[in-house]
């Protein structure tokens, strides 16, 4: 297990750079793509079966880490609610000149609404920026794990992984 993860519960950027589930900088600039933060060998593999493009491979042993084929992945985000660890995100650094789009799994109530201003929160729970809810997907097949797309400052695309609703925005 990654030392940081087992001590603090937080994956560092250095850890993630070694993840087989993380796309290249180049690919993230091109458009939405899955960003898989699963770095511990646990017996779990639904992500590889849900992907309609066959872009995620866990392999024969169910405890192997998911490997992302960044060319096959079109960033549809269907793997996000299927992951019981809530460890998959979508990143689109080509969203606009100054903003990136980050898709995060969300299982809290109330659900946010599109257009709402929120605090973008990092892996340690720190509010790092103001973000905007762009859209929310919560169909029945997601089974109560909503997928929330946030517009965040581009340089924080790999930091924001959660959000909290700002006061007065509820």
């Amino acid at each position, binding site marked *: 297990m990654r030392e940081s993860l087992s001590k603090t519960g937080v994956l560092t950027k250095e850890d993630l750079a070694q993840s087989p589930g993380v796309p290249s900088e180049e690919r993230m600039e091109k458009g939405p793509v899955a960003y898989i933060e699963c770095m511990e060998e*646990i017996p779990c*593999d639904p992500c590889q*079966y849900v992907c309609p493009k066959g872009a995620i491979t866990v392999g024969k042993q*169910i405890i192997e880490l998911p490997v992302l084929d960044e060319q096959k992945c079109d960033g549809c985000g269907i793997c996000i609610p299927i992951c*019981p*660890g809530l460890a998959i995100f979508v990143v689109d650094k080509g969203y606009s000149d100054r903003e990136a789009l980050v898709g995060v799994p969300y299982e809290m*109530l109330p659900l946010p609404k599109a257009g709402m201003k929120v605090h973008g929160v990092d892996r340690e*729970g720190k509010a790092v920026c103001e973000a905007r809810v762009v859209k929310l997907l919560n169909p029945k097949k997601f089974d109560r794990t909503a997928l929330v797309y946030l517009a965040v400052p581009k340089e924080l695309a790999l930091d924001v*992984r959660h959000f909290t609703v700002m006061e007065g925005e509820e």
Partner: protein
Amino acid sequence: MIETEFAVVGAGPAGLSAALEAGRAGVQTLLMDDNQAPGGQLVKQIHKFFGSKEHWASERGIDIGDKLLVQAQKAGVRVMLDTVVWGIFNGGKILAIKQGDRNRQVLAQKILLATGASENPLAFPGWTLPGVLGAGAAQTLVNLHRVLPGTRVLMVGAGNVGLIVAYQLLQAGARVVAVVEALPTIGGYGVHASKIRRMGVPILTGHTVKEASGNAEVERATVVRLDDRGAPLPGAEREFEVDTICIAVGLHPLAELAWICGCQFAYIPELGGHVPVHAENMETTVPGVYVAGDVAGIEEATVAMEEGRLTGVDVARCLGYISDRRAETLRGEIQARIELIRTGPFGDALKEGKEKLIERRG
């Protein structure tokens, strides 16, 4: 006296799976549980499960219990809820049960004890104050009865139970001020830890609760840092204002019925303490009495379901409903799936523990 071929005590994932497997093969099966709803702990597992398709991966535990019950009923299993099994007699052939106000006996050719586990307590000054409770109890209150035990919570233990219940308390609207873990590392899955970290919950490894204090109920928790040997460091205390302290320091097999009927036990710390010795087919040292799920060693619900299936298959074979060859094939498939779950950093210790247990019998 109720007569049945196969009596299953406990309608959790192991008991339901065993009843289903046996019922499907044609075995006359009676499934009993002291709760009002079947599913065991599944009834409060609102999170999505890990695993493979065969293990209901990505389905929420609450839904798995319902589906297993429907399948079991379709397979002809008779289900008796609100039924306490309080005794086992005649070398494991007769169960004494209490159904409502009525005491009855069940005579069975084969019996499965799938009674699950109980939470370990942790004693410290103030631990008897109202507001100190098991994490599992808090989970029951929140997810089943929809009652928050408190609004500011300290979670003691960073195994999967502590991490998951901390997350579910957040979902229910409580504030979790910290998770403390006496060991130097987090015991549960990293992804569960990451989930609560990004929601702002600190996880303090190498820390434990030293004292709970307050007037008539918990108002404060004192947490202390531990040195490399696990001894409290003087002056390294911190106070948290909390109204609730949840204890998640492991589980142990709930094995009274196995003790009563004379099963041999072994002490296997990896599996939660004293565990009934059993063979690969899940039969204990008392012929015809089986154990499956947490009572046979603390593991995940996915393993409990597989152990239930192993029992169901063996019972069906013994009673002549399936051939030895068919049973062997089914057992091979189930064993292969269990092997897969018991690999990796989390599975190795469990596998070793189980091997020790089975060796002792052989």
